[in-house]
């Protein structure tokens, strides 16, 4: 799962939907059975795509996710990019590209801060199905 995806998924328990704590899901507690594993996977750089998704990013949530995964280098506020092809923007776009698209969460767990439910990621694929007792 890419960091970009972590920025748009929340707890699927219906009762959590109204809580501000259902997003983002947290990587701060991992289980020994499924240790957190990150990897870098090359993805072709598309400034157009990064510019298109940047407005859709929840920046504070991205800061949280990045911090929990060990990256504290992000600017505190969402950068504004008016001209994606301007040379002074290239490095920033490349950094965002690397973070959002090239960083893979191969396995690990994500926790809802509202209900405490844990979602597992295995082979890069998160599982958002709920056990019987969490479905109304």
């Amino acid at each position, binding site marked *: 799962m890419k960091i970009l995806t972590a920025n748009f998924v929340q707890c699927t328990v219906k009762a959590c939907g109204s809580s501000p704590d259902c997003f983002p899901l947290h990587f701060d507690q991992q289980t020994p059975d499924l240790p957190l594993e990150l990897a870098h996977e090359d993805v072709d750089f598309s400034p157009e795509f990064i510019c298109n998704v940047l407005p859709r990013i929840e920046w504070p949530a991205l800061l949280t996710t990045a911090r929990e995964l060990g990256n504290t280098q992000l600017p505190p506020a969402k950068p504004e990019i008016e001209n994606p092809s301007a040379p002074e923007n290239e490095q920033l776009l490349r950094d965002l590209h690397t973070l959002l698209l090239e960083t893979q969460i191969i396995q690990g767990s994500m926790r809802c801060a509202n209900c405490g439910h844990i979602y597992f990621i*295995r*082979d890069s*694929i998160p599982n*958002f*199905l709920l056990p*019987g*007792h969490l479905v109304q």
Partner: protein
Amino acid sequence: MKEYLILLAQKHESFRKAELEALAELEHVAVDLSQHDENVPLLYVTLDSEEAARKLIRRSILARSIFEVWGRGNSLDSLHEDVKQRTSHLWPEYKHVSFKFDIISYQGSRTKEEQREIVESFSYVDFEGPIRMKDPDEIFTIVEQYKTPLLPVSGCREVKDICFGRFIARSQRDIIDKYDLKKRKYIGTTSFDAELALISSNIGLAAPGKIVYDPFAGTGSFLVAASHFGAMALGSDIDGRQIRGTARSNITTNYYQYHMESQFLDTFVCDFTHNPIRPSFRVDAIICDPPYGVREGLKVLGSKNPERYADKLPTKLETGDLSHLRPDYIPPKKPYHFDALLDDLLFFAAAHLVDNGRLCCWMPTANEDYGDRQIPTHPDLTLMSNCVQEFNKWSRRLLTYSRLPRDGSTTTLPPTARSTRIYTEQFRDKYFRGFAKTKDNE
């Protein structure tokens, strides 16, 4: 403004106009397609420029090629007259290029001898360049269409329409073969026909810089098709086995097979009715073939006997472990209705599509009682096209909606406010009973 001729595939006729309309919107090409006739493989259009002609067709699956029209008539004589009138000022420009002539006949054919005669009848254009059968600079094409029905009697060859044109560009029709399911490494029983998946992606306006989402991704047929056109693809499915495939054969290996791994965003496992995508997140298109429960009943998360979970406590195994923490845990599921799922899908699309973003959704319909009332509606979505693929005893439709711009005047319905449709029968029941029987019973 110039006249152009588009040659269309004689297949999936009901999708051709919708595809060209979508491509015109995507490429910002102004064109009037109202002359399109599903029974005719030729379509004459008026376009601003040769560049507009190239753009209109460059992604098309159902168009074959486009020509700049030099003349038209209903006989060879009237054609020549028109060519002379329209294009004599152009002839000097082509005097020295390499070229060849082509003849394309619909509902009829010409002998070699006749073909040579026709080509020679154009000698007045006075091209002096070399004739090259391979890679000429220009291909001049005579397209003729005979009156139907086809009469086998020789000599009785009434031409309905004959056109002389300069070849401009070919479509992408030849990539269908590249994505043929027979050549794809990871497929399953639900994999979707490559040609129609590509057409769906065109109608859904999949393009570079965009996110296309399939919430019923299965083996990823629509993901691959959307990515072919440059979109980043996102998929989810309730069935983790489909999404995961095997270590050596899965959706990701398909992306490697097509050298498109950079266009793959992610897949995840979820029940559509418990979707993890946060309410504020927008995607550019949703393209899918929802489950309609023909092979196995449509299921969502939940239990047939909810009392079992009334205490809201996790189930403990004999070992004392919680059952849902085991990697092989299978959550309980309950049956659901296809009509309710379609309503959920429209509601989701209205909430998550960008302004003017598209929902393309396949829907099975029983032939004999198909009517407008079966088309689901939502106040924030306009129906753009309704294309049908006919089978022997049933048909399926590709419904395409566009998200109305959020100018503040429209509101997204709360999930309880359902569209008012009456389903006489579940499609699934009909499928199993066999459509013919319904008629017999009447």
